[in-house]
């Protein structure tokens, strides 16, 4: 059992200023920033494909300076409200995490696939803002990025334990940190004033029955996460597919052709490995 003090852990997490991204994104970023007549749509699409950029933009637009904290959950809304010049300035400050590059690209791919799957399922369920669910899918494992960033050795130990003892990464994290990536991610999301529903999805995507405000969105990301792992896209800390939450599965009531559509959409849109790293 871990002797990590939760207060200390939380304090460290809340003091994070910005999250890093993968080298591939940084490469494309300079092209994007320098493009003369880039549109809001183009820059949104670029940002929405990266968890670190997405959190940076959401953090900015939900900050006290803009005056409507906890309201903005989609990248296209954020870019419209921030405006091109502010966004370009934000992108200038993006950093790259060279050390854990390999581990990060697996998680990156997993998050991207989950964003796509979440969007498709949200569209099938007729949700008004599928983009917001897509963002939740993109950011659901942000806690893993945080833990890898702040405690690389301990997180590697957790991954080794998950592999060696055939337990879930979730449980291995609990052993190492007394907290899981779901807790940690939700702490940061709360500190950065992300909307309630988004925080809840990050916190409850493994235990969707606990979601009070956004049970449908949480169920969607739970299912999307599962399908990504079932298909084997990326790497989220373990290779084994977890058990689906029965209540979430029943709530979504997806047909097999629905699920096939989700898989097909992911297949078509996952960029080749070279593009990412």
């Amino acid at each position: 059992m871990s002797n990590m003090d939760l207060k200390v852990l939380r304090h460290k997490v809340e003091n994070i200023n910005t999250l890093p991204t993968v080298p591939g994104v940084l490469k494309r970023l300079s092209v994007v920033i320098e493009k003369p007549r880039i549109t809001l749509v183009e820059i949104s699409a670029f940002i929405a494909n990266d968890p670190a950029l997405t959190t940076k933009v959401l953090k900015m637009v939900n900050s006290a300076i803009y005056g409507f904290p906890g309201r903005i959950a989609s990248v296209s809304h954020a870019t419209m409200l921030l405006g091109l010049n502010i966004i370009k300035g934000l992108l200038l400050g993006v950093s790259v995490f060279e050390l854990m590059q390999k581990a990060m690209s697996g998680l990156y791919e997993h998050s991207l696939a989950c964003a796509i799957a979440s969007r498709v399922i949200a569209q099938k369920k007729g949700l008004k803002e599928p983009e917001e669910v897509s963002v939740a899918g993109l950011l659901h494992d942000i806690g893993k990025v945080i833990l890898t960033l702040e405690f690389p050795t301990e997180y590697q130990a957790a991954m080794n334990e998950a592999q060696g003892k055939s337990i879930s990464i979730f449980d291995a994290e609990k052993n190492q940190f007394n907290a899981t990536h779901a807790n940690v991610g939700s702490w940061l999301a709360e500190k950065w004033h992300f909307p309630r529903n988004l925080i809840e999805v990050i916190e409850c995507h493994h235990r969707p029955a606990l979601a009070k405000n956004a049970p449908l969105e949480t169920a969607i990301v739970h299912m999307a996460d599962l399908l990504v792992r079932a298909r084997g896209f990326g790497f989220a800390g373990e290779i084994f597919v977890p058990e689906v939450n029965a209540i979430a599965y029943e709530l979504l009531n997806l047909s097999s052709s629905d699920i096939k559509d989700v898989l097909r959409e992911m297949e078509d849109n996952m960029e080749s490995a070279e593009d990412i790293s």
Partner: protein
Amino acid sequence: MKTIVIVCRDIILNNSIERSTKGLYQSVIFNKMPSALDYIYNSIPNLIVINVIHDDPIAINIINDIKTDPLFYQLPVLAILPDQFNIDHPETLMVEDYIWRSDFERDFLARVNLSIFRSEKNVEINPLTRLPGNISIGREVRERIEKNKDFAFGYADLDYFKPFNDCYGFSRGDEVIKMTGRLIFGIVKAKQPQGSFVGHIGGDDFVFIIDVDLVEEAAAEIIKAFDSLITGCYDREDSTQGFIQSFDRKGKASQFPVMGISIGITETRSRPFSHYGEVTELAAEMKKFAKQFKGSCFKSDRRQDKEGD
């Protein structure tokens, strides 16, 4: 204490700056612009001092881009210039003030004080949205009329804003106003970075000036964005049912639908204007017309039957 952000790599200068501002201003020093930006975004300082290296004003350009945003509009910039710097081209040096390296010891603190003093003089800016008001709007329209430039003028306001304010309180009403201001600004500036203008008359009334060829696109985008953002401002039960319970002007309990935005558009191609008042009057008429329709829409005086949604 007021804050100054300094972007400078020169250790001698930095030490000098810290010494002279000690106890008077909070100085925060950065070696590079990107790290400075992060800080500036999170806590808008009172002044930015940039040490210009050779003839490379990139850092200044970055700040000037940021300053087109209403939130950072009043941020003064003081540039420290190397003695060989060529100041003959004003476009390369868009700053509020500059100081020569050789004058630094003598003049720095005085220049800092003056720059901050100048920036705080009363400029007519809406405290909520930080967008310019009536005087600036009038000036922008008049200038374009005088120069015979074609332009389109959009006049927007919110439908059912008062019941929202009454039901949810000023604080949330203010959030909606701020959001609308930023929305209109972001979309108009993205469509036309140079030569466009966004103003806030007060309350829930906004105006924007944009190219004739872009105005309908811009209006349509503003409407789409507003409609998708506004539902998030309501409590879940209210947004699901599509209305709120409140009291009308006579005090009677009534149901009010989710807010919409109505935009009236007028432009100089279909009828030339000789006077600022004509522009605003006609735009107001179009806006009034737009308000007669359920939900958000825009009405342009160019085509009376054009639907905006």
